[in-house]
């Protein structure tokens, strides 16, 4: 085996251990339909990462395709999501699978390098380094129980259920406030890392331009990096459902509730809070939230108005309004909210 093939083979093994196996962790659990949906999204997301890795040569496209095609659970996950109307087979995110003559299969061409846009070696190496960073960030917190519990709760629970989970009023064996909080922190942490990795080219460019770090060679194809990071953003954001304003509201209410627990009557604390709020705005924007800039005043109100009343501080620009989160059954997700090409 050539040195290159050895490298790509070990990369694929790393992907299998770090992403695919944890993403398929649900098959070993006893889950209801709603809990399963969040895990199924993770399994299909893993297929997208395999395809993207194949496209940039992080692993051999054919081998990545085979790994996914051989994972019956990934395919079943896709079928379940479509049947449950959680995703639409017409939406770009679902098109990692294709239908022909009534037969569904993974699209092998999605796993292969784009022959029309040749990527030079230096750019490719930067893409692969960034991609490995993505996988490590995802492996750290994206597919564990706590994160899935949070994602299921925030996206699928109606108001009564969501509030009960936040307040520790659910008595199910799997329910836990600590899980909800930790899962929330994981979700935020994951999006934060993905966003920073996606911005790393820009950061590299700036530091070289201003000579603030030791010199590094120029990366000649920034457009390839832009396309790649855009694809990654589309892949990761689907599971967060942040294109729905009501869910974005829940993020800010919960964040405000947690930050409110650390409340101190000091100027320092009051000054620290907007910094955290602004950071959260950037993270949810990366995760697919729309019009965050336009909704800042409303989100600020939700953030500073802890539902428990622990931190009632009115926004300087808008009168206090109790946080309201509309209930939303899971099936309205398949209304084609996402757009753009993935994978």
């Amino acid at each position, binding site marked *: 085996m050539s040195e290159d093939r050895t490298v790509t083979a070990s990369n694929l093994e*790393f992907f299998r*251990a*770090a992403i695919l196996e944890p993403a398929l962790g649900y098959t070993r659990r006893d889950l209801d339909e709603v809990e399963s949906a969040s895990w199924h999204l993770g399994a299909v997301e893993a297929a997208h990462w395999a395809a993207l890795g194949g496209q940039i040569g992080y692993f051999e496209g054919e081998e990545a395709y085979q790994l996914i095609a051989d994972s019956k659970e990934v395919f079943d996950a896709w079928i379940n999501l479509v049947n449950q109307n959680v995703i639409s087979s017409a939406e770009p995110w679902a098109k990692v699978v294709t239908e022909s003559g009534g037969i569904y299969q993974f699209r092998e061409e999605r796993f292969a390098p784009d022959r029309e846009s040749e990527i030079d070696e230096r750019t490719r190496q930067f893409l692969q380094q960034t991609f490995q*960073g993505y996988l490590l960030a995802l492996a750290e917190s994206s597919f564990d129980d706590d994160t899935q519990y949070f994602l299921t709760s925030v996206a699928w629970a109606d108001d009564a259920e969501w509030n009960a989970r936040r307040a520790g009023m659910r008595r199910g064996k799997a329910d836990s406030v600590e899980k909800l909080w930790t899962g929330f922190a994981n979700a935020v942490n994951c999006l934060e890392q993905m966003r920073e990795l996606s911005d*790393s080219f820009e950061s590299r460019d700036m530091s070289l331009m201003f000579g603030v770090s*030791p010199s590094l060679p120029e990366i000649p194809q920034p457009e390839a990096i832009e396309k790649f990071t855009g694809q990654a953003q589309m892949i990761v954001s689907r599971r967060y459902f942040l294109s729905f304003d009501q869910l974005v509201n829940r993020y800010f209410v919960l964040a405000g509730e*947690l930050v409110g627990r650390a409340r101190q009557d000091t100027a320092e604390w009051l000054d620290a809070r907007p*910094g955290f709020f602004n950071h959260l705005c950037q993270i949810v924007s990366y995760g697919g939230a729309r019009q965050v800039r336009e909704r800042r005043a409303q989100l600020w109100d939700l953030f500073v108005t802890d539902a428990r009343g622990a931190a009632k501080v009115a926004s300087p620009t808008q009168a206090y309004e109790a946080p309201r989160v509309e209930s939303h059954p899971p099936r309205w997700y398949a209304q084609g909210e996402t757009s753009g090409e993935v994978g």
Partner: protein
Amino acid sequence: MVQLREARYGIPGYEKSYALLSRARGIDTAVIFVHGFGGKPTSTWKNFQGLADEYSEHYPWWAQADMFFYAYDSVHTQVRANAPILGRFVEDVWHGRWWGSDSGANRRYSSLIFAGHSEGGVIIRRLILDRYQGIWRAVRQSHAGADESALKRALAESLKQDFVLAASLRLFAPACMGTNFSSWIGFLTSFSAFVAALTASSVVRNELLPTSTILHGLKEGTEQAYMESPQVGSLFTSPLFGIPDQVVTSDSYQGEELLWDKGYDHFTVCKPTYQHVRPLEFVRK
């Protein structure tokens, strides 16, 4: 151009720990990264994973080093219980036990570096002290009745042979002198650490307070050991603190020089970026 490192995920027995193995020739060093309270192996050490290679022409020692990112329960498991678990991990890495049947098991290191952040620094120093005291007890037992000078010679010889005690310690904002849990502002710049602080076991939190008997005992024991055996490099170090750091007490053990990194807080001091390469320079033999 070939990737400079091979990633191995899920080191058996240490869930979510992973290795980035150098593909260079002449690898002689294992660097073990130990995150802090509420931290995680990737996010705590963010960018080490990529920048160590990208800057390998400027900091060539990284090419000679395998990187191990250790994951452990920092919020529910006590310091004294965590130290021996880290010790087993270090043994497994050093002796290549985690490779299984892989040919890489032939890898042999001559140097060990611990990079610790916050509580990670406490766990590392506890491991070093446990190791020192264990050797001290073993030598006493095996030389029962020997005179003091013979005992000292035997102790020095045993200490010299221990690869953990020969390690270099590179500690970022270690929590060895206590953590400021009474104010949460410092935690707000790392949301996951902040939530960890909210959900952590009060036992672990108490162990990391400035008044903690665990921290006090570690300080006394390490200073005493260093007085007895100043040749043991891992008993003495110069920690690097950010300015400002609102999370830990920025101080260290007797005589240790404090290094400062202005403009970086408790959580960013250990993260290299294109604008902040100091962490890459700091972690070396």
